[in-house]
């Protein structure tokens, strides 16, 4: 208990530096969630509505990709962005941009696969009605996304949780550079390896509190909206 109290105390004493780390963590993970959601929801909707050869295989692969190891994603993005790599020209390696890319790749399958499941359930209910009204597949896909918006919150939150919690990908492509690419998870890993366990623990609690706060807020909004719209 003493270590936890000391850790929280040390974390709060960090003030300026700490908040920079927290802010960068949120910036990177929320940007990745935004990108993964923008791409993942339409992808999930397309898989829910469209019937094509190989659809089941695509779904199996997508579900499997939910378990992508962050270090492997980090490594692949590292190879793409490194000086000698195909995207080396961009000079993105060891920048927050590279971290956003890696986390987007990591959570896109999570958002898309969970969205596909929720939207397929909705499609089962809506299909006849929408087809009867004359909705084309594209209309139907966007109608489903809008109508299942409360269920989709869960898919997006799962993506956010994964992005905020992972350390392997941002460590490799970001490099944990103090003041540039250091985020909460890489800071925790660093402090742990340095043996400063109270500070690592304190940072850990801040991270958990943040994720809890975001989830609670999303849940409240979702419930209020659900009561309102049925």
């Amino acid at each position, binding site marked *: 208990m003493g270590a936890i109290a000391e850790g929280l105390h040390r974390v709060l004493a960090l003030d300026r530096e700490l908040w920079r780390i927290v802010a960068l963590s949120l910036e990177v993970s929320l940007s990745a969630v935004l990108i993964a959601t923008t791409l993942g929801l339409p992808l999930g909707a397309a898989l829910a509505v469209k019937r094509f050869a190989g659809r089941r295989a695509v779904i199996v692969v997508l579900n499997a990709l939910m378990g992508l190891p962050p270090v492997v994603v980090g490594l692949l993005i590292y190879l793409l962005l490194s000086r000698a790599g195909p995207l080396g020209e961009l000079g993105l390696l060891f920048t927050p941009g590279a971290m956003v890319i890696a986390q987007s790749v990591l959570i896109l399958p999570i958002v898309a696969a969970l969205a596909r499941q929720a939207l397929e359930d909705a499609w089962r209910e*809506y299909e006849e009605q929408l087809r*009867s*009204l*004359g909705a084309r597949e594209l209309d139907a896909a966007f109608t489903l996304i809008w109508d299942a918006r409360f269920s989709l919150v869960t898919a997006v939150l799962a993506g956010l949780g994964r992005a905020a919690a992972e350390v392997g990908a941002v460590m490799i492509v970001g490099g944990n550079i103090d003041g540039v690419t250091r985020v909460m998870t890489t800071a925790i890993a660093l402090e742990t390896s340095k043996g400063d366990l109270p500070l690592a623990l304190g940072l850990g609690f801040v991270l958990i509190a943040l994720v809890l706060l975001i989830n609670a807020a999303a849940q409240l909004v979702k419930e209020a909206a659900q009561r309102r719209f*049925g």
Partner: protein
Amino acid sequence: MSAAILPLALDNVSYASNGQAIIRGVSLAIEAGPATIILGANGAGKSVLMRLMHGLLAPSAGRVRWSEPDPASLRRRQAMVFQRPVMLRRSALANVVYALKIANIAASERQALALAALDEVGLRHLAHRPARVLSGGEQQRLALARAWALHPEVLFLDEPTANLDPGAAREIETVIKAFDAAGTKIVMATHNLGQARRLGDEVIYLHGGRVIERAPIEQFFARPASAEAAAFMKGELPWV
């Protein structure tokens, strides 16, 4: 708008699902005019037959032919109301507006047309209520408003009052009569004989996926030509 989409002709239409024959070689013509009731016991194939006509299912064999060859035009000139209405997660008004939008009605006209349709079914006062919190009867009337706004030439109804209490069912029947009076061809599946009599002009009696009998409503109830129809009515009205 081009010539009428009716008559609709079914040409030796069969439908099977998982090797189970549901509709077996049905040939019939649906003409503009009389309200047609598709009558039959549960499992006779009423719902499937209507979905084949409406184009939600493709026949396993045979052909469904409308007079209008363009599928897009055909789609927007017919409507269907299901046993369990599917409401979009938005207001009652927005549900009707959505149908108009899908049917390519100009944005400037949608609101007025949708409000007029809500008026027609007596839901104007609930226009801004979320559709999914409406009662079952109100939802079904909203489904009718969604159809009304499009002024369809043909309206398919699949047991529209099966889940409703008698009061709500009566309100639905009133709206269906208004469709009929406005010149929309009614094709309705039901196993409720009273309702068939109140709303129908002719009966198609379905049994085991086959059309057993087709007759004007009064004749059908007074002297059913087939033993199956007679037995069905005896079962439904055991006191007769």
